[in-house]
């Protein structure tokens, strides 16, 4: 199964909204999300009601969509709307009696971003949300690739996660390095047509196991999908030790995209836009066939294969 990438947009801690990923990847990363000015595309009163995560999700989705009509909205998010989840928890753990305000609860569900995109666009098409830890985006992409082949139309697919101050605090308490944390929203428009495409997604797979099975599973994935050996691997290692993981493909150039966007569960969506930019020849890195190997905690793995359309 394959699908073609026709457009994309990432909102992150870099100026990716305006300038893309390759143009900004060597600059210093901001401590917070760089939100673009959305007032041209979303009514200011709507923006005010959106949490930062919803704002970056809807913003990236609308920018990726552009003027295209879309017939599917599919989102992958590892943790969903954490800020609103914390806000609603705050209310009831501190207040044993009295009335609770429902707003944070309403906007805490994992499907809030996909729902808000549909609502903002008035779009009644297929709409789904996946939350499978480090392979949430791979879940969403698998669905999107099937859907655009089923209905021969444009599908908007994205990966999004936010990082709240509390998550950073708890991470540090648990002994994690706060510098590795990241957040962002990357949305792409896929369809079944090669005409005018920027790049082609030729395979997507997810599996769980340990690092010892990675090389053989990658090899099996390439064989089963009839894919040639990639000339670049984008590796997201979530800050864990991954030495010797890619013995099989050891002679292939590897870039760790988690170093560029920071760690968050759905950051393989960021890697997919990055891979497309590389294949389009937007930067100095040259490659025509890119394999994204997303490693979450040395336990869950996502594979995405991208090549020239």
């Amino acid at each position: 199964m394959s699908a073609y990438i026709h457009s994309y947009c990432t909102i992150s801690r870099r100026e990716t909204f305006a300038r893309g990923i390759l143009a900004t990847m060597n600059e210093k990363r901001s401590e917070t999300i760089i939100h673009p000015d959305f007032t041209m595309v979303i009514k200011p009163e709507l923006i005010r009601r959106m949490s930062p995560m919803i704002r970056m999700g809807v913003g990236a989705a609308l920018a990726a969509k552009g003027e295209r009509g879309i017939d599917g909205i599919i989102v992958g998010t590892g943790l969903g709307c954490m800020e609103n989840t914390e806000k609603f928890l705050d209310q009831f753990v501190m207040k044993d009696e009295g009335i609770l305000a429902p707003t944070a609860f309403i906007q805490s569900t994992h499907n809030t971003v996909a729902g808000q995109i549909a609502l903002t666009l008035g779009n009644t098409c297929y709409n789904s949300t996946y939350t499978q830890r480090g392979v949430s985006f791979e879940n969403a992409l698998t669905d999107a690739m099937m859907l655009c082949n089923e209905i021969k139309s444009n599908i908007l697919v994205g990966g999004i996660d936010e990082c709240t101050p509390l998550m950073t605090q708890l991470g540090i308490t648990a002994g994690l390095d706060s510098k590795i944390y990241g957040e962002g929203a990357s949305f792409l428009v896929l369809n079944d047509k090669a005409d005018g495409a920027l790049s082609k997604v030729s395979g997507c797979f997810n599996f769980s196991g340990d690092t010892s099975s990675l090389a053989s599973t990658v090899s099996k994935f390439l064989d089963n999908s009839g894919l040639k050996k990639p000339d670049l691997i984008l590796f997201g290692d979530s800050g864990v030790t991954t030495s010797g993981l890619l013995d099989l493909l050891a002679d292939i150039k590897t870039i760790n995209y988690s170093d560029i966007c920071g760690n968050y569960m759905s950051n393989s969506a960021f890697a997919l836009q990055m891979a497309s930019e590389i294949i389009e020849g937007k930067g100095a890195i040259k490659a025509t066939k890119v394999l994204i190997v997303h490693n979450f905690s040395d336990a869950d793995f996502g594979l995405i294969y991208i090549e020239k359309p």
Partner: protein
Amino acid sequence: MGVAVTGIGIVSAAGLTVSENLAMLKSGKSPIRKIEGIQNLRKPYIGGQVSLSDEVLRKELAVSTEKIVPRTALLAMKAASEAWTGHKTSDEIRTAVISATSIGGMELSEQFYRQFKRANDFAKLNWLSVHDNGAGTNILSDFLGINTWRFTVSTACSSAANAILLGARMIQNNVIDRAIVGGADALCNFTLNGFDSLMIYDSEWCKPFDDRRKGLNLGEGAAYLVLESEESRKISGKNSICSVSGWANANDAWHQTASSPEGRGATLAITGALQKAGLTSEKIGYINAHGTATPNNDLSEATALNNVFGNNLPPFSSTKAVTGHTLAAAGAIEAVYSVLAIRDQIIFPNLNFEVPMKEKTCIPVTTLTSAKIDHVLSNSFGFGGNTSSLVFSK
């Protein structure tokens, strides 16, 4: 051509197995009562609780007491092991686990959070390691021994219906041969307080489609179905109970939580599912409605049913007055009930209904009824405008 259902399993307030659920549905009784055993409840909520404690579930499932496992995952394992009975992992059958949840490990996270916020106590910090939805799916998949194609769907109250239709689509697209699909959610303060804050939590038994309805009662549970391709069945040797023949997912695009008065998304979902199944509306022998008993849902759903079926509504009922609204598990629990309706040619009663809605001629079936049922429609709608419908066929 649909996709074969070759295994079903369920755990809910109505019972710990498929046969216990069936007996409760036939009895016309409701197990919904005062919720007990959840710490720090703000109110005396009533709801549908699974009668087994975590300790008993752990023992039965041979889950170590050392391991951090949220109740959602324990319920998932309990129901999935019933559905998976007689199935085996096989290199020849590409198999996916597609599980739905809306709360994941929240039932543990909220306990940590309370101690952390009130007393700066970090003792339960490691409980957050299973906070995310995917943690439970991994625990379930490890339990079943399935390492590839793990999916978690989270589209609020329509989650499990979307898990089922993803499985059917992956099989039809020849991505996989077999999937165990369904959903699980445990009761917790987060959702009880959440629906209460929306003023749609009935302090008495919920009354789906009744004019006096005030809101829902939550429930907990899990249900799973095994879906297989023809090729997979040749290897597994399993018989088909019925098939998933139609499905559709749409969005209401009206409000983050409320359903549109014209039932826009629901109408699209029902119409799309019938179309996918290649059925005209009069072929549907029973509708298991979403029927949460909130004033908004039931009126909007009734409008959607009228949009599709006109005044010739097939027999329909909501089983939420038996199970409570089990959120991300609801679509799977009701899918199993739909399978049972076809298998046993019966329609389950909609409890607590007395007074028809003023706005609509919409009378559910209120007693256990035998009927010729070739096709069942099951509706699942949720926050975020998510609306999905499934058709099961003999």
